[in-house]
C-alpha cells in the first residue's frame, strides 16, 4: 500500500545535502576550530529543539521548561567527572539520561494534569525551581558553574576507538547522534504511538472517547522528550567543558521554542532548520553590529508573518490535509 510521506521531497533533499555538507566539513575545514565548534553546537541545539518539537509540534504540549532536562544532564556529567580523568561515557550518559527520565516522569505526572496556559506556566515553574537549586548550591558551583575538565571516555571493554578530545571525533559523534535522533523520532511518529499523539493534539476528548488513556500517552511523550533533551544537554556540557545555571534557564527553553517555531512545528526537519537558521544568523549579526538582537527579533517576526508554518514550509507544503479545522 502506498504510505504517504509527511515530508515533501524538496525538504528531504535539503536535509540530505545539509547532512552531507556537515559530514564533509571537517575534511576541508579541519583548521577552522571555531567553525567546527560552532557547527557542533548548532547540531546539539538541533537535537534539543527536536526533542521539544515532539511535545509542541506533535503532542500540542507547549513546555517552557524544557531546558531543565538539558541542564540536569549536563550537571550529572559534571558531578560524575573526576577532577583529572574522564568519566566513562556509557556510565555517565546512562546516569544523565536516567536522571532526566526520572525528573520528566515526576514533573510530567504533575504538570500534565494541566493544559494550555497553565501547562506553560507550571513547566516554567518547575524549570525555575531547578534553576535556583543549581544556582544557589555551592557544591554545583553556584552562579559561576563548574568545569568539566576532561571529556568523557568512550571505550568498548577497554578498547578506545577514538578520543573525544579530538574535536573532529566529537563532531562526528554529535553528527551521528543528530541523525540517530532524527530517525528515531520519525520512526516514533510513524508508529501507532505517534498517531495517537497527533490525535491528542487535534482533540484530546475525541481520543479519550475512542478508548485511549491520553494521560499515559502524554506522559510517555513527555519522558521521551525529556530524555532526548538530556542527551543534547550531555553533549553540550561535554563539548563546552563547562556547566552553569544558564543551561537550565528560561532563556534556554525560550531559544529552543524559537527554533521550533522558526523551523516549523510538527515537521521532523523543522527544528533542525530552525536551529541552523537562528544560530547562523546570530553569528552573522553579532559580527556585524552591536544591536544584533534587534535585527534577529525582526527576522523572527518576519518569518512568522510570512511563513506561519516555519522555514520548513519554504520547501513545499506538507501533504497532510490542511490546518486544524474539520
Amino acid at each position, binding site marked *: 500500500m*502506498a504510505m504517504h510521506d509527511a515530508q515533501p521531497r524538496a525538504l528531504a533533499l535539503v536535509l540530505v545535502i545539509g547532512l552531507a555538507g556537515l559530514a564533509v566539513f571537517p575534511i576541508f575545514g579541519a583548521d577552522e576550530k571555531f567553525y567546527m565548534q560552532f557547527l557542533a553546537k548548532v547540531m546539539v541545539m538541533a537535537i534539543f529543539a527536536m526533542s521539544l518539537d515532539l511535545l509542541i509540534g506533535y503532542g500540542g504540549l507547549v513546555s517552557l521548561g524544557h531546558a531543565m532536562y538539558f541542564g540536569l544532564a549536563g550537571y550529572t556529567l559534571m558531578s560524575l567527572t573526576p577532577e583529572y580523568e574522564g568519566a566513562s561515557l556509557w556510565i555517565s550518559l546512562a546516569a544523565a539520561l536516567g536522571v532526566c527520565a526520572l525528573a520528566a516522569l515526576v514533573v510530567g505526572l504533575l504538570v500534565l494534569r494541566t493544559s494550555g496556559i497553565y501547562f506553560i506556566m507550571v513547566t516554567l515553574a518547575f524549570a525555575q525551581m531547578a534553576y535556583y537549586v543549581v544556582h544557589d548550591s555551592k557544591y554545583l558551583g553556584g552562579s559561576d558553574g563548574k568545569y568539566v575538565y576532561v571529556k568523557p571516555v568512550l571505550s568498548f571493554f577497554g578498547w578506545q576507538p577514538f578520543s573525544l578530545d579530538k574535536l573532529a571525533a566529537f563532531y562526528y559523534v554529535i553528527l551521528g547522534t543528530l541523525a540517530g535522533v532524527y530517525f528515531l523520532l520519525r520512526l516514533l511518529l510513524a508508529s501507532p504511538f505517534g498517531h495517537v499523539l497527533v490525535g491528542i493534539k487535534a482533540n484530546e476528548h475525541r481520543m479519550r472517547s475512542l*478508548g485511549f488513556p491520553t494521560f499515559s500517552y502524554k506522559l510517555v511523550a513527555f519522558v521521551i522528550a525529556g530524555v532526548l533533551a538530556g542527551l543534547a544537554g550531555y553533549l553540550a556540557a561535554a563539548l563546552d567543558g563547562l556547566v552553569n545555571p544558564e543551561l537550565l534557564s528560561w532563556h534556554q527553553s525560550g531559544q529552543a521554542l524559537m527554533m521550533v517555531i522558526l523551523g516549523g512545528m510538527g515537521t521532523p526537519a523543522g527544528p533542525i532548520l530552525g536551529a541552523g537558521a537562528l544560530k547562523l544568523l546570530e553569528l552573522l549579526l553579532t559580527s556585524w553590529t552591536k544591536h544584533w538582537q534587534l535585527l534577529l527579533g525582526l527576522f523572527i517576526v518576519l518569518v512568522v508573518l510570512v511563513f506561519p508554518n516555519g522555514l520548513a514550509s519554504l520547501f513545499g507544503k506538507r501533504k*497532510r490535509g490542511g490546518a486544524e479545522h474539520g
Partner: protein
Amino acid sequence: MAELLIEARGLHSYYGASHILHGVEISIGRGESLGLMGRNGMGKTTLLKTLLGLVRPRSGEVKVKGVPVTQAPTHRIVRMGIAYVPEGRGIFPNLSVHENLVMTARAGAEGRRDWDYERVLKTFPRLAERLSHGGAQLSGGEQQMLTIGRALLTNPDLLILDEATEGLAPKIAKEIWQIVRVVRASGIATVIVDKNFAAVNAITDRNLILVKGEVVYCGASSDLRSKPEVHQKHLGV
C-alpha cells in the same frame, strides 16, 4: 430481554448551573437498535456524553454490561465495547485516512475481530481510493464514513451515532443509512440520534423521546409508527 449493554438510572447531569438531564433512565440490549429522538437542546448529546463519562452525572448510575462505571474514566468505559461517532464527525485532520483508520484498530472487548481494515475498505470503497489523503481533504460524507469506519475497527458491541447524516446530501445520507443497516445486521447494537425521525424509526427496534431532559416516550418503533400524535406533540413533525 437479553443481557443489557448499557443500563442507566436516575441520571441528573448539569452544565455548570444548568440542569440538563432530569432523572433519565435508558437501557440498551445486546444487538438492539435504539433511536434517541427529541428536538434541539433536549439533552440527547448530553445523555450520550453522560453514558460515556465525558459529562459526569451529579446523581444516578450508569452500568455497562452490569458493571457500574459512573465514575470510571472515559477510555475505560469505551474499551468495554462502545464506539462513539460524535456529532460533527471528528476525524483527525492532521492524520491521513489510512492513519485515521489503523489508529483505533483493535479486538473488541470480548476478543471479536469481525471488522478489520480490509472489511472496512470493502464497506467504504470511497475511502479505499483516498487512503493517503489528509482527513480534512475529504467531503462531508466521506468524513462521516471515515468516522464510522474508525469506530467499527474497535470491534464494538455498541455503536453510537450522533447526527450521522446531518448536513449531508440526501443521496449520501441514504448511503450512510445503508451502512447503518449493514452494521445492525452484523449484530452490533446501535444508538441513533438523527433529525430524520422517519429514517430512524424505520431502522430501530425501539425509540426514546427526550423533552427537556426527561424521557417522555419509550416504546417499540412499530408502536410509534401508529401514533402520529406522539410525533406531533414531542417532535413537532
